[in-house]
């Protein structure tokens, strides 16, 4: 509607295709291609093969996928409970306190992930809270880093929820617990699902804190991709990256359909 001439529009779309192609499409395509590349010394690979996938499948891939999925699921579930709980509880605080606490719950998203990892190492490396060297410290790191996102998502959902629903519910005789379970949480469900999906995706791709704290035997996908490429095994790294992207997308799309069904 801004550009009316046909040639002008074509020109602009060509420019868009260029920027989009170079910045967004090319990386994904190249990763995909390289994960299938046999030898790649020229402009294009000399041949295609599934060898890298079978290699990583025999190697650490399955363990890494499992570690990432379990970490992502547990950390996101905990973040969802804690974030929802915090967002709901903040509504019944005094306005000033609620504002201050609201900012505090957001701060983990502002701190560099490496520092979060460093802090956990410093704090939990000796009894009574000895988490260093355990799987738990990875979960904790992921939980801390994604908790702000779930809190933010749920808070945004609550802010958009008309107070009428809850007020009508209580005027009809619903006690707080009944109302929370039968009115507030169902109405928030799309936001909860979205928050869970985003947390899970962030956790799957988390590197900074994980690389600081992971114990041997709990190597997540990003960490194992890094060690593969660091060793020069870039094709295997690409294959593992494609597995990570596919897992993330399947998860996100699945959750989106779930959320869609709930709002319909």
């Amino acid at each position, binding site marked *: *509607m*801004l*550009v*009316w001439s046909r040639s002008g*529009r074509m020109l602009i*779309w060509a*420019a868009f295709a260029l*920027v*989009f192609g170079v910045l*967004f499409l*090319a*990386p*994904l395509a*190249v*990763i995909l291609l*390289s994960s299938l590349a046999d030898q790649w010394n*020229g*402009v294009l690979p000399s041949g295609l093969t599934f060898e890298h996938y079978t290699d990583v499948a025999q190697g650490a891939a399955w363990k890494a996928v499992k570690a990432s999925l379990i970490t992502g699921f547990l950390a996101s579930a905990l973040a969802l409970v804690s974030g929802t*709980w*915090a967002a*709901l*509880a*903040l*509504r*019944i605080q*005094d306005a000033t306190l609620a504002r201050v606490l609201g*900012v505090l*719950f*957001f*701060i983990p998203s*502002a*701190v*560099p*992930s*490496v*520092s979060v990892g*460093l*802090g956990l190492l*410093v*704090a939990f490396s000796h009894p009574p809270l000895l988490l260093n060297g355990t799987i738990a410290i990875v979960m904790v790191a992921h*939980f801390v880093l994604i908790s702000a996102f779930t809190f933010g998502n749920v808070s945004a959902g609550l802010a958009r929820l008309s*107070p009428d629903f*809850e007020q009508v519910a*209580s005027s009809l005789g619903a*006690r*707080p617990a009944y*109302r929370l379970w039968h009115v507030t949480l169902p109405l928030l469900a799309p936001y909860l699902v979205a928050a869970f999906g*985003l947390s899970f*995706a962030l956790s799957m*791709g988390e*590197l900074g804190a994980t*690389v*600081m704290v992971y114990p041997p035997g709990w190597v997540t996908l990003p960490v194992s*991709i*890094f060690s593969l*490429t660091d060793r020069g095994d870039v094709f295997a*790294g*690409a294959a593992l*990256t494609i597995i*990570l992207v596919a897992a993330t997308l399947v998860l996100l799309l699945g959750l989106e359909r779930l959320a869609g069904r709930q709002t319909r």
Partner: protein
Amino acid sequence: MADAAVLPATPAARRAPGRFWIVPPAALLALLFFYPLALIVQQAFLDDSGMANVAEFVRVLHARFFLNALINTITISVAATAGCLIVGLVLGLILAFVPFPGSGVIARLIDTFIALPTFLVTLAFTFIYGSAGMLNAGLMEVFSLQAPPVDFLYSTWGVVLAEVTVYSPFVLRPLLAAFSLVDRGQIEAASVLGARPFRIVRQVILPAAVPALIAGGSLCLLLTVNEFGIVLFIGAKGVITLPLLIYSKAIQESAYQVACIIAVINIALSLGLFGLYRFAAGRLGV
């Protein structure tokens, strides 16, 4: 959690019984995040024998490796943010005002980049722009060169380009939301009156986009200062940023106090930018 949702917007009504529900999540966050954060600060000012010691802090502040990392971090962050704003604005304008069949799908595709790991882009860039990558191979073949002509990837600019790709969706997202509120009738009326596209963009669209640009831009500043994966994956000797320095001091050199000192400064910088972002977003209602 039973009383956790007692009526919002109630003046002083029945708040007392519910107010303690905030304690469990707040305590969890305090234990797992704020307590470690406080220990980092404490460690930064204590030497190995546990005595208060500011000298080490001052020494790190003046160290070459630290200053380089600080300058690198800021340069990369500012340049990448500028790039994100330009790319986000251009893509946003086209997606919103010169839409094409499938532009909705493209917008969502760009949006999913937010959910993908940041190092993916770096890995891809090594295949494209790396010394043995597609671009160099092509150029060497065509011009019969002996050495790869393109080597910006292992410099600051490689990191900047990767960060632009990764973080421009963070500008694009609020921008598209702002553009969806721009009155289409106004643009059509201006077009009918003979205003040229640039004039419309400048006078009608950009003013509406300013809040989104400021909020998206300050978020980009924050995220690029904190970025770790991209820098780690490029692995160039010359390109060390604060997060990478923390990692290498702590994990590779086991110099925890130095790592904590750098972390304190990095966190302070991040919190400052976070404050800027909150201020901008709150002020502009994004």
